[in-house]
């Protein structure tokens, strides 16, 4: 099957600032594809190019087999967009937000009206039909934005930080809805700062920083390749960490010290965890042995410091 999105050496410049510095990726039909990256990585810039509103400065991009430069209108007819900043229409009540938005698409009013009702139920806002937008909580607004993005039954759904700023209940509800959509075969592109979100939802993802792609694979494969299976953490100053590691054969396992934390990244083949724990107990230090996560990969690749 031909890819839903195909980007090659894709670049976005604002005046002379390079926000996206030549990235390559392909998204297959039915896939949930993630963009992970710190603030300013270029995620939204990339999403806006996929949306076929902002035009690439260089490189090639094909969305649904078409060129955004010439076929923006046709592409957007089949696209659903959930933008990073909520731009619901505060002048209109909940239901009209869906009806008016639906009117921009080539579909009959009756179809839009039926879908609007179904979608409000789908995102559990059925009882908020006539509420004003400012009366909604952040999570309700986000769900409404997602419902709005689905009004044209899109084949490709673009979600720019769908759950940022929401409480755990709201995030879980949105995840459930997104998994339902994925099960129906909707292709999804998602940006997020939340590692658990990416791990739960994405089949494949890229880690971006400074406009470049640093790594690209499934969450599991990224963890295995960059971190391993387990992480041993020890509360230790730089000097304490040096003492702790002195004379210890790490069998090639990598380690990292930041602030007051020493982390040793372990795979099964290292068979180190018992020795590390013994040593930590002997020294009376605080330690933790936990599963490796995407967050470890992310921090390893993008660095631990805030670089904005």
């Amino acid at each position, binding site marked *: 099957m031909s890819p839903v999105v195909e980007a090659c050496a894709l670049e976005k410049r*604002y005046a002379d600032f390079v926000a996206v510095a030549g990235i390559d990726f392909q998204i297959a039909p039915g896939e949930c594809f993630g963009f992970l990256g710190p603030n300013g990585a270029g995620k939204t810039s990339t999403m806006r190019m996929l*949306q076929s*509103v*902002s*035009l690439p400065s260089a490189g090639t991009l094909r969305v649904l087999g078409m060129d955004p430069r010439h076929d*923006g*209108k*046709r592409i*957007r*007819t089949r*696209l659903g*967009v959930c*933008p990073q*900043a909520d*731009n*619901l*229409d*505060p*002048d*209109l009540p909940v239901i*009209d937000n869906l009806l*008016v*938005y639906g*009117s*921009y*698409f*080539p*579909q009959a009013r009756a179809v839009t009206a039926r879908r609007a009702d179904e979608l409000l139920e789908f995102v559990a806002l059925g009882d908020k039909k006539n509420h004003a937008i400012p009366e909604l909580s952040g999570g309700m607004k986000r769900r409404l934005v997602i419902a709005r*993005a689905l009004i*044209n039954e899109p084949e490709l759904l673009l979600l720019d930080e769908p759950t940022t700023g929401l409480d755990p209940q709201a995030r879980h509800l949105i995840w459930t809805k997104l998994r339902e959509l994925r099960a129906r075969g909707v292709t999804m592109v998602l940006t997020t700062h939340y590692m658990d979100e990416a791990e739960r939802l994405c089949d494949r993802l890229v880690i971006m920083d400074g406009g470049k792609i640093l790594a690209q694979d499934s969450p599991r494969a990224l963890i295995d390749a960059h971190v391993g299976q387990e992480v041993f953490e020890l509360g230790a100053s730089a000097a304490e960490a040096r003492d702790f590691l002195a004379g210890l054969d790490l069998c090639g396992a990598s380690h990292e010290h930041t602030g007051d934390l020493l982390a040793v990244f372990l795979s099964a083949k290292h068979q180190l965890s018992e020795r590390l724990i013994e040593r930590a107990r002997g020294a009376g230090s605080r330690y933790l042995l936990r599963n490796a996560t995407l967050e470890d990969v992310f921090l390893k690749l993008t660095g631990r410091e805030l670089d904005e």
Partner: protein
Amino acid sequence: MTASTSFLHGAARVAGRNLTVWRRYAAASALGNFGEPLLYLIALGYGLGRVVPPIDGLSYAEFLAPALIVSTVMYTATFEGTFGAYTRLTTQGTFEAILATPVTISEIVTGEILWGGLKSAFGATVVLVVVRAFGLVPSWLALGVLPLGFLAGAMFYAMALCMTALSKSYEFFNYYFTLLVAPMYLFSGVFFPLEGAPPWAHRLAQVLPLTHVVAVSRALVRGQPSWHTVGHAAVVLGCAAAAMALAARLLRRRLQI
């Protein structure tokens, strides 16, 4: 599903969105269109008018009435095209949201201007009804101020949209209102006849689009159109076309980033 929507569908839906919102505040909006010209008509037309000698055989109220219709048009279109459109462009992100749908930037601009024309034509209708109630509308040709209101409204709205596309804040509009809109209101022959003014003032007034709109409105309401009226209407049409083209350019530059 059809492959995609037509240009007119997109533009009509953008205008339709504004109409849907406006319907919720229609009463307040109509009151504004109704109240202010009424106060001017009473205070100036009948108050001041008592001490003003007849102009071309017209009482001051008769002279003022046709111009009040189109000055309402100018203010309606200008407020909506600046503060209203700027809110949709920036704080509310309305245009940004629409751009995620098949509607294009040109369709947004066209739809917005269409809306500006409609809202202004509505304002013109309200004032026409008011001045008619005072017996100040002798001719049926006065109904021509509705299409005139639409055209002039579209022109003033497009001019305002240019400011909106350039603006970085609401305060920016003070320049536009103080340097262009207010002088236009005062020196376009709304309150006093341009005939008999010094030649330089007369010529200066010809540069202000409202002058030509006022001339057409007066000819229609009095039922005395002439070739001059056609000339004035042509100027309005030309200005409208130029303002629309410029608004489309500037807004495209602002939105397509």
